[in-house]
């Protein structure tokens, strides 16, 4: 049940995408998201779709695994599409009493749906192919210029990396506590909504207790290692661009150009 959430879960395998510098992957993901909002027509989405498919193919992550994360946004997807479908004014195609589906509505709904699916798929692909540590390292490096305007970049990235690092641990913990309570006859899956909400108490209380305990331990361990923020701190594995990263940047630029071209020309 809990294994369905793929966001923030690294999928360990060997691939070109996995080996890329995290900075490239972050830039690529952001460009991809921006490109989804630039694309306005069919061709643009085909290009985006092909680009995404190519990345998934190269990443060696089974597509099944990537689309599993989609379940969590399924409702959001349906609601967005339904609203867009019925509430966009324009030339009516079909009319049901007070509601009508317009040509514009259909177009907008489809576009929104595709956009959302691509958006989630693209960002899950990044987290699936990059370890949380690498990801925050990359982010810290990319945000470094902001230090000049007194943004605590290091602290933010440290907080992020800790948060990301603890997602799988807390998920495992949840799984364990759930099983322990199920062994005591707890039922998390049936009953009315109210009962189900109530049945979460035996899960959430121990989970919070353990999260605080872990936070305490971690703070203690960091202090014992004289952690004093990012000032003068060096890295064991500094990020260095390789040839394939330059190549990847090239591909991103080309892709972006193609998307802009699809909007301008067509």
């Amino acid at each position, binding site marked *: 049940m809990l294994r369905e959430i793929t966001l923030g879960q690294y*999928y*360990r*395998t060997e691939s070109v995408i996995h080996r890329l510098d995290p900075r490239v992957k972050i830039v690529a993901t952001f460009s991809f998201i921006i490109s989804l909002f630039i694309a306005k027509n069919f061709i643009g989405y085909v290009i985006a779709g092909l680009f995404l498919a190519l990345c998934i193919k190269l990443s*060696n992550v*089974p597509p*099944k*695994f990537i689309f599993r994360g989609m379940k969590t946004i399924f409702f959001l997807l349906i609601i967005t599409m339904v609203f867009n479908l019925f509430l966009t004014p324009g030339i009516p195609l079909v009319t049901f009493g007070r509601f009508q589906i317009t040509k514009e509505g259909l177009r907008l709904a489809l576009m929104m749906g595709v956009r959302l699916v691509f958006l989630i798929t693209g960002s899950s692909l990044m987290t699936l192919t990059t370890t949380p540590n690498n990801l925050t390292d990359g982010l810290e490096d990319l945000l470094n210029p902001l230090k000049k305007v007194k943004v605590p970049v290091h602290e933010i990235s440290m907080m992020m990396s800790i948060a990301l690092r603890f997602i799988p641990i807390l998920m495992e913990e949840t799984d*364990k*506590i759930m*099983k*322990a*309570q*199920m*062994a*005591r*006859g*707890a*039922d998390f899956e049936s009953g009315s909504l109210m009962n189900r909400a109530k049945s979460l*108490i*035996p899960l959430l*209380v*121990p989970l919070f*207790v*353990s999260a605080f305990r872990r936070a305490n331990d971690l703070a203690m361990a960091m202090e014992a290692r004289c952690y004093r923020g990012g000032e003068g701190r060096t890295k064991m594995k500094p990020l260095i661009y390789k040839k394939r990263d330059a190549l990847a940047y090239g591909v991103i630029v080309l892709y972006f150009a193609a998307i802009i071209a699809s909007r301008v020309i067509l």
Partner: protein
Amino acid sequence: MSIIVNHVNHIYDEDTAMASPALIDVNLKIPDGQFIGLIGHTGSGKSTLIQHLNGLLKPSSGEIFFNNEDINDPSYNKKNLRARVGLVFQYPEHQLFETDCFKDVCFGPKNLGLTQRDYELRAYEALKEVGLEDEYFYQSPFDLSGGQKRRVAIAGVLAMKPEVMILDEPTAGLDPKGREDILNLISDLHSKLGMTIILVSHSMEDVADYVDRIIVMNKGRVEFDGEPKEVFRHYKELEEIGLAAPQVTYCMQELKAEGFDVDTDVTTLQEAKQEILKALGRC
């Protein structure tokens, strides 16, 4: 009345790159009233195996029968099974959540749909059974010591009145005194209440004094299965898989090698003492 594990295989994360077999063709028959030590190294599959016994995990292939009924049959009542096969997880104190110990112990029997009178009685009995002093009954479980918390957690499972009690490393992280207390408590459950006990541990010393039968797991397979003395005869093989026989076994083996006429099959300190005295001709 027994548990039968028939050709059970379990693979974690099947169909992904992380797929790893945790149980490979496990066959066991666990009759009523036995006190079993399940031993194995970290990652040997022992925790996976016990979660199969009360239906928390489903085998990838193979069957598990409890009292001649397949527990993974869709029509089988799993809630009922979990009441009859009690499972105490590792560090069970991490599952405590109620405002006081008594309420927490009530959680299990309450889920069985008993009346308030019945479940409170059971909770009271269970807390008495684990030897928690009365003054702690209405205190927050988070204020207790590690050993006391663990007793409350064990009481939480005990209050469901299971026929089979499985305990996953119940002594982990306790001091020697707390360890002995918990082991004696478990031994009492077996001798006084006649429960079938499966005690999971990675320490031979812990189990050797108490159990009738030892099952040794290694890399997802059952490596040895038999009475303690039979299993300890394989002490050289046990060492190869990163386990060790109790100190007594080594001591007796050495004595034998030195030419003393002692029985190397003894497993407890008491028996060893008798043997040595006999060999010295003082008895």
